[in-house]
């Protein structure tokens, strides 16, 4: 472990700490109750149907899983690329990644139509041509790697510390595969107009950096504010500018994706639907304006330099934009009818040719919220029992040569 920062558990023991944990616990219970309710009645109590087969729980789950991969990037930059400024945040970053993944996976699991049959998979019912099956291996492997990675960062003995770099590299490669796999869940669907595109894999990888960095920023700022520890600009500004660059790169991939689609006549329908139809508000206002333009302005506007409120706002908006990104991709892509007969009007009792409507019911929304709350609760609790956070992230500790000009 290269960093010399001193780590400690979070010492807060007052009503603030337990209040936050209690609130999160209530949300988790709400999510569990929703899952039980859905499981008991069946999915007719949700807004999901045979047209929109994946709904709000999947929006939350995909966001959390993608964010998880990105959240560990802060640790990667410290380990693999040797950026010392990032190293004090490595433990928290890896722990956050594991927590987000657990929350996301639990949502997916609890939404399944028949959870009991998951046990069958343990008996070898795995189809290795399915990216879903691969993802189950990638996701569980990621948690194992993160656990070892944390051990190499936190152990005092020599052996684990010597593994810090190789495990960091493995973690980085694994993350690439994992987010590629998540993007490919949609990217490898030949049937649907908005999917079936190789660019979804890199798009999801770069989007994961946005979600993960934004969540790291918010977590660090909130933690250091609430614990009264010092947080300097050196580390925050690194995260700040990398967030803006990741947002810009995501927009670039999104731009290329739509430009490519717009060139092909067969995709004009879906492009019109997303860019100027029913989902245009969510795409332009939610994903592009709220999620990209405003955060980039808040970060790169020179009058807002070192302004923490602006940074926190930018990070919150990037997270919100992330949800819009997933929603437009997932729900927008399913809302657009399958094209079985090009250049024809199509109708049926099974809603062929119709734009499919979806509105989430409370239980399915609550399941998603509960999963997110669980992720945060794991982090809040983890900070209390593990030495995840440096005692100080002041500029003098993080980077003695940092000049704030």
């Amino acid at each position, binding site marked *: 472990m290269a960093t010399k920062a001193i780590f400690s558990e979070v010492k807060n023991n007052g009503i603030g700490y337990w209040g936050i944990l209690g609130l999160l616990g209530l949300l988790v219970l709400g999510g569990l109750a929703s899952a039980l309710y859905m499981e008991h009645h069946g999915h007719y109590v949700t807004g999901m149907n045979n047209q929109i087969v994946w709904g709000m729980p999947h929006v939350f789950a995909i966001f959390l899983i993608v964010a998880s991969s990105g959240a560990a990037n802060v640790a990667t930059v410290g380990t693999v690329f040797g950026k010392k400024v990032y190293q004090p945040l490595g433990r928290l970053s890896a722990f956050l990644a594991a927590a987000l993944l657990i929350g996301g996976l639990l949502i997916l699991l609890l939404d399944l*139509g028949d959870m009991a049959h998951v046990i069958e998979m343990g008996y070898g019912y795995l189809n290795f041509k399915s990216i879903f099956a691969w993802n189950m291996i990638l996701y569980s492997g990621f948690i194992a790697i993160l656990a070892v990675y944390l051990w190499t960062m936190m152990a005092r003995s020599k052996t684990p510390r010597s593994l810090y770099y190789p495990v960091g590299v493995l973690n980085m490669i694994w993350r690439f595969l994992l987010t590629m796999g998540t993007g490919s869940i949609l990217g490898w669907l030949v049937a649907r107009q908005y999917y079936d595109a190789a660019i979804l894999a890199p798009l999801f990888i770069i989007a994961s950096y946005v979600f993960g960095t934004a969540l790291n920023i918010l977590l660090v700022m909130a933690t250091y504010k609430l614990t009264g520890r010092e947080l300097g600009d050196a580390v925050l500004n690194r995260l700040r500018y990398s967030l803006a660059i990741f947002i810009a790169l995501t927009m670039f991939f999104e731009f290329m994706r739509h430009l490519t689609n717009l060139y092909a006549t067969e995709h004009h329908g879906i492009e019109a639907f997303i860019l100027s139809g029913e989902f245009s508000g969510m795409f332009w206002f939610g994903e592009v304006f709220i999620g990209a333009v405003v955060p980039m302005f808040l970060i790169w506007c020179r009058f807002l330099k070192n302004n923490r409120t602006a940074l926190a706002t930018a990070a919150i908006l990037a997270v919100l934009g992330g949800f819009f990104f997933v929603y437009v991709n997932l729900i927008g892509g399913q809302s657009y009818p399958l094209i079985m007969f090009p250049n024809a*009007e199509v109708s049926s009792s099974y809603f062929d040719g119709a734009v499919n409507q979806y509105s989430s019911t409370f239980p399915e929304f609550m399941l998603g919220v509960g999963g997110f709350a669980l992720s945060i609760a794991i982090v809040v609790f983890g900070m209390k029992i593990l030495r995840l956070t440096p005692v100080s992230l002041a500029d003098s500790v993080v980077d003695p040569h940092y000049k704030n000009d």
Partner: protein
Amino acid sequence: MNNIDSYRRRFLSGIGVVAGATAAVSIAPGVFLRDVQAKPADQPISSKVRWGMLIDINKLEDGGDACIAACKKEHGWGEEEHSNDEQKAQWIRKVKVTEKLTGHSFSLPVMCQHCETPPCVDVCPTGASMKRADGIVQVNKHICIGCRYCMMACPYKARSFVHETLIDQLPDTPRGKGTVESCNMCVNRVDEGKNPACVDAAPHALLFGDLNDPESPISQALKKYGGSQIRADLGLNTGVRYWGI
């Protein structure tokens, strides 16, 4: 089934045996409805056979309504009590198509197309979505976890998810809450040497048989007149072919 029905069935199948050949009904000069033999129950399903279906929509005056009714009766879907119209199962439905430029309009029944390389089978994490050796694509309800990835992957919107608890399912059609289902080409009937229910509901327009047997009526008909696939661009080599689309 009442006694008269079962008596009639035995009587009719007896005629078939006496005739010394498989049941053959003329659909067009030189084109016969089917020549399917029952598979002995103790023998595994063979990949020597590939079941397929040919639908002549010009002869389906009702656009497939009778087929849909027969399928419902055979498998018992569509009566889900709590599910709304968007959630109710539909194994087969009538799709109306009107070409925008010409105004040419037609209706056709659409269900699982029983692809040779089914996307639903590729994506299924557990292997529940499977293709039998004889080409019939269906869901193994025992290992379906209800993730609905197959529904995302199917280009024909052929699958339904069961959104509620079901009771009194038909004995030949296992169905259950939280699993995905679709047309299974009436495996229960096919394995007994019978036609799928939809074929029997419109025998003048639907032809069922073995695509691998060059001498089978369906193969002969397809060889002579061709047969269109929906979304042929995907190269899935569907087992269901159409005339008139």
